[in-house]
């Protein structure tokens, strides 16, 4: 009470004083307090939103990070089997083309050694569409040009077949031209990772994204050097810089970089960051292609996967991280060696390797492959365009450019090489021999007769030419190649026509309705041959006999046959079409002849076998598919007459000396004024369509047999095909006839040849071409 009483006056008495003394500071303090809050709020809100924006950005990009990977396009894998005809030199050529090295030891995948008649090779593991083939050490013994024996040395047993990984023939790049092969951290040799950390960011496993010690050290170093010699960036910062930010050097960017590095470290493990770094880092430039990531760099510089790198090769790659262009081992091998050795020294210093090992590795050559087998420009631009055209029917352009699809095509580099050589040499020779022949160009397409796979596609005399794609886009008159449709239309009517039916090879005149337009075709030799058997007219490509036959059959019927053969282009049917006033591309002609080469089955031409995802998961298969368009018997008859065309008819001069057992059917074609020279030839295995002409459509002065067929002959001589005999349908019966007159003859008589006929007595035993049976469309 007292206290209170005492206190109160005291309180009261002091109150005014207090009020006068304390009121101002209190107010100020309160104000300051409020101000502090306001400032804090004002500061925290933007900082918070700034950090939160960066945080979202960091997480979204890192988690959703999908590097744009180029699509990789492969040739067919080489399938080796016992009994296969394959000169050893072609096998070593194929191995060299996929980056295999000749080495006596053959202890690493990607090495081979040829001694006398035996080739030892250690294949690389490869994921195909159907199976994953492990690496295998194989011993292949040859008997001259034939594979006689294959031994799997790992399993110590004989094997009947083996598959060699395919050659990469092109890539479809992202728009920014970055090239990379993704790797997972466990695929990368630990020593490489350790070396990278030692060189680029020693405190990587200790810091939280930013290293104050690193910055301080860089500052001191730069001060000493009087300029910028060392950056204080951690690996995380470098990754952030490449991943998220533009390359300019501003304070804002630096701040963002630091903050994002902290956030990245906050959210993700060191291993995740390291893996991303290894895939992101820039390690070289090849024309306009940028080499990113350790996986791609390993192929680019050493032509092997990252798991197979030797110590000094790892050191070189680590050395390149700092400045890939400056230490480019192809351009500046000395600088690169110096840099590599510095990395090796550092590795020894950090006790990752022994000093002795470092010294040993330092004397190794750089071992960088002269030219990357992993090409930036495809050696087969024309074929690649066909692949793109076919693949674009199923995939979006952006997916092709960024999903890292692995596209396995049908291209056979060995056949392609022979075809290119035949075209280049052939054109050169023809131009030398014929004065009128200048600026000659050409196209050649080779397909599998039965499966329609495009094995080779040649565009002109210079196969590297990436401009006008003649096989796909040169729409040219096909001349007498069209005649097969006329004769096939006739032979389908087996009650009326056979190979010995008599045709009239006499003058023909066609007038339009008003009579103003007159068409009077002539034979190539300008003569009329009177009555001739059908096979003889076709083999010798008589125009007059063909026109008479075509008009007898009806233009609509011939047009329908052309459509059934696979001509999809729309065209108007005039009598002149019977002699080839129909314009098609070499590819369209190939599709048309494919149907007769495969015995009457339409087989769509395919350039792609299958597609895998970037990590080897099967995505899509372009399966073999056929559709019967003609009964096999009339097609057999037609093909038999086409064999006469090669041996006895228009092709007789060019086919001289061809092996007797080679049952090759073919047809020459020449357009008006000798502007186009064609030859379509096939056997049981391959179909080849060859075209020669000029880009400006001027005359080349060559017929089908004096031009295109000679190029084809050169190709066949180089290829030496197997010569499988054609399969004779059940309804076929053979009789001896006189070749020129078509009259019955007997064995041994002069001019007598065996001629196939369609017999009726066995009709029930064979598919008759009955249309209602296969109307499946």
């Amino acid at each position, binding site marked *: 009470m007292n206290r209170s009483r005492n206190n109160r006056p005291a309180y009261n008495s002091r109150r005014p004083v207090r009020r006068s003394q304390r009121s101002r500071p209190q107010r100020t303090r309160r104000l300051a307090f409020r101000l502090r809050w306001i400032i804090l709020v004002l500061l925290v809100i933007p900082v918070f939103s700034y950090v939160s924006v960066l945080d979202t950005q960091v997480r979204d990009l890192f988690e959703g990070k999908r590097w744009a990977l180029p699509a990789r396009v492969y040739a067919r894998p080489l399938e080796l089997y016992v009994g296969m005809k394959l000169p050893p030199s072609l096998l070593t050529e194929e191995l060299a083309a996929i980056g295999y090295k000749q080495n006596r030891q053959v202890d690493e995948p990607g090495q081979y050694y040829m001694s006398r008649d035996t080739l030892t090779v250690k294949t690389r593991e490869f994921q195909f569409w*159907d199976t994953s083939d492990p690496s295998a050490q194989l011993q292949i013994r040859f008997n001259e040009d034939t594979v006689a024996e294959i031994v799997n040395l790992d399993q110590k047993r004989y094997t009947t077949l083996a598959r060699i990984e395919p050659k990469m023939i092109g890539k479809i790049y992202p728009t920014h031209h970055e090239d990379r092969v993704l790797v997972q951290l466990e695929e990368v040799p630990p020593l490489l990772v350790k070396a990278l950390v030692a060189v680029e960011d020693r405190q990587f496993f200790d810091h939280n994204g930013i290293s104050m010690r690193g910055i301080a050290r860089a500052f001191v170093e730069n001060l000493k050097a009087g300029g910028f010699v060392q950056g204080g960036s951690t690996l995380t910062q470098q990754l952030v810089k490449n991943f998220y930010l533009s390359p300019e050097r501003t304070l804002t960017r630096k701040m963002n970089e630091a903050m994002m590095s902290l956030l990245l470290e906050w959210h993700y493990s060191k291993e995740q960051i390291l893996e991303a770094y290894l895939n992101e880092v820039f390690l070289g430039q090849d024309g306009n292609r940028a080499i990113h990531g350790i996986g791609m760099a390993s192929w680019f510089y050493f032509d092997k996967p990252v798991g197979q790198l030797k110590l000094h090769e790892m050191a070189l790659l680590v050395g390149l991280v700092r400045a890939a262009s400056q230490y480019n081992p192809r351009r500046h091998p000395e600088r690169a060696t110096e840099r590599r050795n510095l990395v090796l020294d550092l590795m020894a210093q950090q006790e990752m390797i022994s000093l002795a090992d470092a010294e040993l590795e330092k004397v190794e050559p750089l071992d960088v492959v002269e030219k990357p087998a992993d090409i930036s420009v495809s050696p087969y631009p024309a074929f690649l365009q066909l692949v793109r055209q076919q693949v674009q029917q199923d995939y979006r352009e952006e997916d092709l450019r960024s999903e890292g699809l692995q596209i396995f095509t049908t291209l056979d580099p060995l056949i392609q090489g022979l075809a290119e050589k035949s075209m280049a040499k052939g054109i050169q020779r023809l131009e030398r021999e014929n004065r009128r022949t200048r600026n000659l160009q050409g196209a050649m397409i080779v397909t599998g007769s039965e*499966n329609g796979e495009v094995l080779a596609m040649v565009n002109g005399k210079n196969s590297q030419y990436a401009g006008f794609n003649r096989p796909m886009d040169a729409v040219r008159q096909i001349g007498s190649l069209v005649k097969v449709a006329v004769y096939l239309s006739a032979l389908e009517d087996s009650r009326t026509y056979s190979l010995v039916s008599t045709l009239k090879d006499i003058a023909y005149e066609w007038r339009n309705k008003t009579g103003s337009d007159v068409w009077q075709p002539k034979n190539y030799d300008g003569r009329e041959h009177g009555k001739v058997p059908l096979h003889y007219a076709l083999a010798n490509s008589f125009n007059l006999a063909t026109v008479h036959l075509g008009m007898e059959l009806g233009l609509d019927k011939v047009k329908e046959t052309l459509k059934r053969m696979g001509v999809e282009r729309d065209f108007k049917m005039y009598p002149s079409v019977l002699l080839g006033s129909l314009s098609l591309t070499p590819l369209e002609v190939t599709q048309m002849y494919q149907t007769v080469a495969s015995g009457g*089955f339409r087989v769509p031409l395919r350039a792609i076998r299958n597609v895998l995802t970037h990590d080897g998961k099967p995505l899509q298969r372009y399966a073999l598919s056929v559709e019967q368009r003609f009964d096999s018997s009339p097609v057999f008859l037609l093909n038999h007459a086409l064999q006469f065309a090669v041996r006895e008819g228009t092709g007789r001069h060019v086919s001289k000396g061809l092996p007797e057992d080679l049952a090759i059917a073919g047809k020459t074609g020449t357009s008006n004024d000798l502007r186009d020279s064609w030859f379509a030839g096939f056997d049981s295995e391959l179909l080849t369509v060859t075209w020669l002409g000029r880009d400006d459509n001027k005359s080349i002065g060559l017929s089908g047999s004096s031009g295109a067929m000679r190029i084809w002959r050169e190709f066949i001589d180089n290829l030496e095909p197997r010569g*499988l005999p054609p399969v004779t349908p059940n309804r076929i019966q053979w009789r001896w006839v006189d070749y020129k007159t078509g009259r019955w003859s007997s064995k041994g008589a002069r001019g007598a040849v065996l001629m196939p006929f369609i017999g009726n007595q066995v009709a029930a035993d064979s598919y008759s071409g009955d249309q209602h049976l296969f109307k499946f469309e």
Partner: protein
Amino acid sequence: MQLWQRHTLGLVLGVLLCLPLSTVMAEDSKAAVMTLLSEAKTFFDEGESEQAAAILERALRIDPRNPVLWHNLAGIRLQQEDWVRAASLAAKSNSLAVENKWLRVRNWVLIALACDGMGDMDCTMEARNRARALAN
């Protein structure tokens, strides 16, 4: 699918990929094709029919006119109920199986089943008649 159809399909597929190689096959590549055929059979038995088809296509690249390979490919398409393709592939096999009557019978049975799958009764009847005529 009716019971008899299931039964016939089962019969066809049961012997699929076990067919012996025909005599028209090129001698030199016989062993390699046999290996692939047996690989294809393993995949087929494991239900990996597309894998089996891919391997049969590999074999056809080595021996393009082998009617047994074409027939087996047709059988795989039949199992996948890809009727049109199955019938066409069987017709292809037929065009090559000139010396193998038994295989041609099988092909016509296969075509009959494919036609039935398509609901084309005329085609089914005709194919069945062909099979019967050949078998007798």
